[in-house]
Structures are given as C-alpha cells and as structure tokens.
C-alpha cells in the first residue's frame, strides 16, 4: 500500500531531494556516538563540564576527529553529513542558548534576519525544491 517493497529503491529516492539529509539507518549508524554525545547535554552537570572544556568533554566520546571538528565549529550541515540528527544536535545549540530557527538559518545561505523574513513571508517555496533530477 505504501508502494515500496524494495528497500534499495526506497532509499535511493531520498538522495534526489535538494538540500536535505534524510536520517536513514546508514546515517544513524555513522552518527550514533555523535548523537549520544549531544543527548548527554540534557543533563545540567554534563552541560557544565562541556562548557568548561569542550574539547576535553568531546574526547571522552568515541567520535571521529572529523565529527569533533564539526561540533567545535558548530558546522551543522557537516554534522548532518557525519550522521547527526537535528533533534539530537538541538541539544548542542540549546546549550549555546541559540533558538531553533537561528540554528536552522546557519544551515542555509541566509543570515538569521533574512531567514526570519522568509518565514514571515510564507516560508521557502517547494517550487524547484522537490527534486534534483526532475528540477521541479
């Protein structure tokens, strides 16, 4: 009924969406420790340790050096590429005191005021943003 019986075909379609990293099992595997690290920031005592020395806190987690660099640089697109999921990563920008919309804007080519204005004007149009191959 959902129209899919072949997992390969199902997953392949996800790569055709512009500017989007669908959180597949492959990403969940790659980013498991990155996401668990982010999740640890839900505890106040961990947030204190993290704020005192970010690098030392990160070094207690089995992350790749690339993942650690992406976290330290707050490069959210890179974190998504390395298996992060935005709901887990949100614990990092919440700890930084940055609202969700502002964090979203850092992943686009807009400043936060520009992004906010786009949202007030009805958001990003799906026109031309649905399919890379199809261009619609």
């Amino acid at each position, binding site marked *: *009924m*959902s*129209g*899919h019986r072949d*997992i390969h075909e*199902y*997953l392949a*379609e*996800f790569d055709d*969406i*512009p*500017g*989007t*990293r*669908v*959180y*597949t*099992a492959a990403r*969940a595997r790659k*980013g*498991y420790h990155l*996401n*668990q690290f*982010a*999740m640890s*920031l*839900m505890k106040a005592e961990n947030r204190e340790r993290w704020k005192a020395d970010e690098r030392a806190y990160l070094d207690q987690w089995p992350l790749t050096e690339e993942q650690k660099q992406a976290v330290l640089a707050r490069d*959210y*697109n890179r974190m*998504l590429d390395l298996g992060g*999921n*935005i*709901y*887990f990563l*949100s*614990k990092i920008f*919440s*700890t930084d005191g940055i*609202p*969700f*919309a502002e964090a*979203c*804007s850092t*992943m*686009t*080519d807009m400043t936060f005021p520009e*992004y906010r204005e*786009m*949202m*007030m004007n*009805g*958001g*990003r*149009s*799906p026109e031309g*943003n*649905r*399919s890379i191959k199809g261009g619609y």
Partner: protein
Amino acid sequence: MARITAGVGSSHVPLLGVAVDQGKSGDAYFGPIFAGYEWTRAWEAEQKPDVVVLVYNDHASAFDANIIPTFAIGCGERYKPADEGWGPRPVPDVEGHADLAWHIAQSLILDDFDMTIINEMDVDHGLTVPLSMMFGQPDKWPVKVIPLAVNVVTYPVPSGNRCWALGEAIRRAVASFPDDLNVQVWGTGGMSHQLQGPRAGLLNREWDNRFMDLLVGDSQEARAIPHIEYLRETGSEGIEMVMWLIMRGALGRETRCLHRHYHIPCSNTAIGHLVLEPVE
C-alpha cells in the same frame, strides 16, 4: 462500553509551549495561532473526554539513539514533563489511564500490532504542547492521557497505511473495553516544516490543506501517500503528519469536520489544526 467520540489533529511546535508558559499567547505573533484554538477549548470543556489517546513523537527526550520503537504505548500511571535542555515545562504531570492502556496494548498485540510497552518515561513538547493548546493552563489536566509514541525520525518510519490501520485497531480495542468512557484520539505533529540542511524553512500551504481535505469524509486516499511525497512536498520533518493518520483511522469509515485552522508561520513550521467526529 468505551467509545471514540472525536479526533483532533494539531501541530506541537515547542515554541507554542514557550508562548503559553511566558504569557505571550495573545501577542501579535502568537495571537492569530491561538485564536484558531479558541473554538476547540470551548468544545473540549463541553465534551469533557475521560481519556485522550495522544499520538506524538519523542524528540530525543525519553528515547535516545539506542532504542527506537516504531510504535510505543505508555501503560504507566503518570508521566513527568521532560527536561529538554532548559528545564521541564511548568505544566502539571500527565496522568495515565493504565487500565485502558493495558487493554489497548494487549488488544493491539493480539490484532497483529507488535507494540512496545512503556511503564515509565518523561513526555516532551510533542505531548504537552497539544494539551496546553486544548486546555490552557489548569492546575491539573482535565483528562487522563495514553501516550502513543511513533518513530518519525529514523527511516524507515511506519507507512501511512500502517498508521491508518493502527488507528482502526485502536478503535476496535477501545470498543471492547467494558467501562463507559468518552475517548478522543489526537494526532499531533506537522504540518510542513524542515529543520535541517540548506532547504530548511520549506513550507507548503497548498499541500497541507489538501492533506486536511483528505481526512474529512470517506476518502481513503491519504493512507497511500508515500514517504517520498511528504519529504519532497512538506520538508524533512513534515513526515510527522503520518501521526494524524492514526487519529483518522481511529474514527472509522467516515468523518465530519467540526473545526479547522491553518496558520503560517510558527518559527519554522506551518500550524494545522483539525477537529473531526466519526459519522456512524
């Protein structure tokens, strides 16, 4: 006998909880969003449901990346609001209905739905924001709640058809519970939004409204919408709308629309709200 008397669809954006908690729900930004819920607040006060089966998703609060249940039902006595990183929301604890929850869980498993059973968990904005939207700021929530958490984060998430069928099975399960209870099913999340990547901020008013149209009447069309369509048309987080299909499935063959509201934007998200009743 217990019966499902109505279904409610609603977004559950965390910022709406902040607006309620900080007394901003009447300001220029939030006012138009909350105005669309006034009808429902009066209606809920009149309906006085005993129990709400509240379909939502956990946003990395109760569940971490370790265990990912596709469908999980809360069978506990009570749930605390989760600390999502800035302290728990100042809202009452959520009281469960363990008898009905266990009855539904057992019935669903016998009906081929392999449910995960949760005894203890904290509930995040996905569950508490809809309660605030429908009931305001009481000292105690006026309903008991059966949390039904759906994985809409790690793919594959359940298909729309599976969600609808789960709703149908919940309807059968509730109907076989001996106590006389007025039960509502709420489907929460959505509507269009994308919180990640260069395409962040995507909203789709036309698609969202067509989706709401499909939930009214006797159409079965929405159950066949594939994941890729939600992703392309409504953003990566728009997939939360499959949770509305559990609510729709629980209302039986045909529905009537009692109230409908749509507003853009709330932060990154399109707000949608729908109140339906079954047509017997």
